[in-house]
């Protein structure tokens, strides 16, 4: 496609009209600055927006958030909604790492105090939490215990391991989606998942000790428990091998069952009817993987709390540990939206995109209902992360969706080449950011330059109206797989 085929709807909002490509059944819409759009055009992710716009039954437009980049089938940063009745579900619109997501916990530990202990805290987290390619979870679970996690998500961790009941309120969907049939999950998925509960994984997954550096919205920040000059913990991970196996199994099943009926621009976009047997089974299995991921992040948080308690010699309450929010950015959810003045129930797919519900939305935790949903946007390991909040404009323009992070700019190979001869740890230490990782290669793949400027993504997200700024956080320590 050509730049001339992209129509500006505003400084940060663009349209690819359905007339651009014969296969399109709906428009494509992208939120982003001109430079973000130009890079999306160059890396073919706009073609992926077009491919999704060609799917049957799409409600509204095929959408992409400001952190758009090339994925497989569906672009990363993509959002697509289908009718709950008569619509389709596509595993490619969720991604392999089902419920990959971000969690932020606030504390009342002054940054200076955390900085004094940052080496001990970082090493202890790296030692305690399984990270990287080879480390498996510490928890040898029996199959029945694992099935409880798949059914109950984060609530099972609070019940059997520890943590605060109050935290569950501040997890999207209370950290648990309906799952009742273990028969929809393959033995391979069970085997991959059993050994990985409580592990971080590799790639772009991380745990960060952060400082709350700037507050933009005093009311929302206070409600979220964020205070300038205090320490926070951010965790980014997902459903590990379990989610990947679920996605793999169902993409394979959907292909087999629908082979004759489906002609797709990209075979990765294979789909099934929501109300078909395979569609229903996928949604059940996806929910199980989502529950795994919420349990995983909750367990990692609880391990981090214990490390802080030991090293800082203070109790959880004394340190003011409190979950701000935990959100999924790879998931499909049934949601009510208003379309042409009517309430409709949709299955909204978000792949590398987050919910951004506004104040007053009934699905928000009671404590946040008058301010809006926290939207967590992690930056690269050398830059800021942001807390935004959902807006009414997001509900009107993007099915209540927003960006999920900085988004990669360089391939891993390019990043390693760029970082050749670079001491990534020392470079970040000069910025008072301590990095803890068992993999030098992994660190080079994740250098800050490999990602888009988070500030540009945030300014674009805010400029387009789909979220507003609440706070900015800066990393003190980064623990990576």
């Amino acid at each position: 496609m050509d730049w001339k085929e992209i129509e500006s709807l505003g400084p940060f909002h663009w349209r690819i009209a359905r007339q651009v490509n014969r296969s399109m059944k709906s428009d494509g819409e992208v939120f982003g600055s001109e430079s973000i759009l130009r890079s999306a055009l160059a890396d073919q992710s706009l073609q992926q927006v077009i491919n999704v716009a060609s799917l049957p039954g799409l409600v509204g437009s095929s959408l992409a958030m400001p952190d758009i980049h090339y994925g497989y089938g569906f672009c990363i940063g993509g959002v697509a909604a289908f009718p709950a009745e008569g619509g389709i579900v596509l595993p490619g619109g969720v991604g392999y790492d089902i419920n990959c997501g971000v969690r932020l916990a606030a504390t009342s530990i002054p940054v200076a105090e955390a900085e004094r202990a940052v080496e001990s805290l970082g090493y202890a987290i790296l030692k305690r939490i399984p990270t990287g390619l080879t480390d498996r979870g510490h928890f040898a679970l029996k199959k029945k215990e694992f099935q409880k996690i798949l059914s109950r998500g984060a609530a099972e961790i609070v019940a059997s391991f520890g943590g605060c009941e109050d935290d569950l309120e501040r997890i999207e969907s209370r950290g648990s989606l309906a799952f009742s049939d273990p028969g929809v999950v393959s033995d391979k998925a069970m085997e991959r998942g059993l050994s990985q509960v409580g592990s971080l994984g590799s790639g772009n997954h991380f745990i960060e000790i952060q400082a709350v550096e700037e507050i933009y919205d005093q009311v929302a920040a206070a409600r979220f428990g964020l205070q300038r000059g205090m320490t926070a913990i951010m965790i980014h991970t997902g459903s590990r091998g379990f989610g990947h196996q679920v996605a793999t199994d169902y993409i394979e099943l959907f292909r087999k069952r629908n082979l004759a009926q489906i002609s797709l621009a990209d075979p990765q976009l294979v789909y099934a009817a929501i109300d078909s047997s395979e569609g229903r089974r996928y949604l059940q299995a996806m929910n199980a993987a989502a529950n795994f991921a919420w349990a995983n992040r909750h367990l990692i948080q609880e391990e981090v709390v214990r490390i802080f308690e030991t090293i800082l010699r203070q109790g959880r309450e004394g340190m003011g540990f409190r979950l701000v929010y935990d959100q999924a950015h790879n998931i499909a959810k049934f949601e009510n939206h208003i379309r042409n003045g009517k309430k409709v129930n949709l299955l909204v797919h978000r792949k590398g995109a987050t919910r951004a519900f506004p104040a007053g939305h009934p699905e928000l935790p009671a404590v946040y209902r008058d301010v809006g949903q926290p939207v967590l946007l992690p930056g690269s390991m050398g830059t800021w992360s942001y807390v935004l909040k959902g807006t009414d404009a997001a509900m009107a323009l993007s099915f209540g969706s927003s960006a999920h992070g900085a988004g990669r700019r360089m391939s891993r190979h390019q990043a390693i080449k760029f970082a050749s001869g670079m001491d990534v740890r020392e470079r970040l230490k000069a910025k008072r950011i301590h990095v803890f990782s068992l993999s030098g290669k992994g660190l080079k793949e994740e250098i800050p330059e490999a990602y888009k400027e988070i500030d540009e993504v945030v300014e674009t997200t805010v400029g387009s109206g789909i979220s507003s700024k609440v706070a900015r956080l800066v990393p003190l320590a980064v623990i990576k797989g």
Partner: protein
Amino acid sequence: MKNFETFSTTADVGIRVWGMDCGELCRNALAAFNELVFGKRKKAKLTFHFHPFEYMGDSTENVLVNFLLEVLFLTFEKRHWVLDCKINQSGDRSIDTQLFYTDWPSDPLLEIKSITYHNLLVRDDNGRKKLEVVLDI
């Protein structure tokens, strides 16, 4: 003549393989997979075990994806190094093979989490079949 090469996308990696038939594509894909996971290695004389793998699919692409998924599972879940394979029989939509494996030669350099169908299509390239497979990492 090249049998395989690796490439990068913005977020993931992939392998490009060539072969005369489905069996050769699978064997070359295994070599490419190993190069990504364990780096370039000489095949040493090692004690190894056999793992039979038989698959009847709907296309060459489908067979290759499922062959690589089996290798992925043996590599990352069972922690085996699948050194090579012997193709007993292969057609456009089927394969019957023995996978030879031993212990990991080292920790993996890269974790591959799944094999995708993204833009996957067999193409003709000067009389040989050519496939590009994007791997989820």
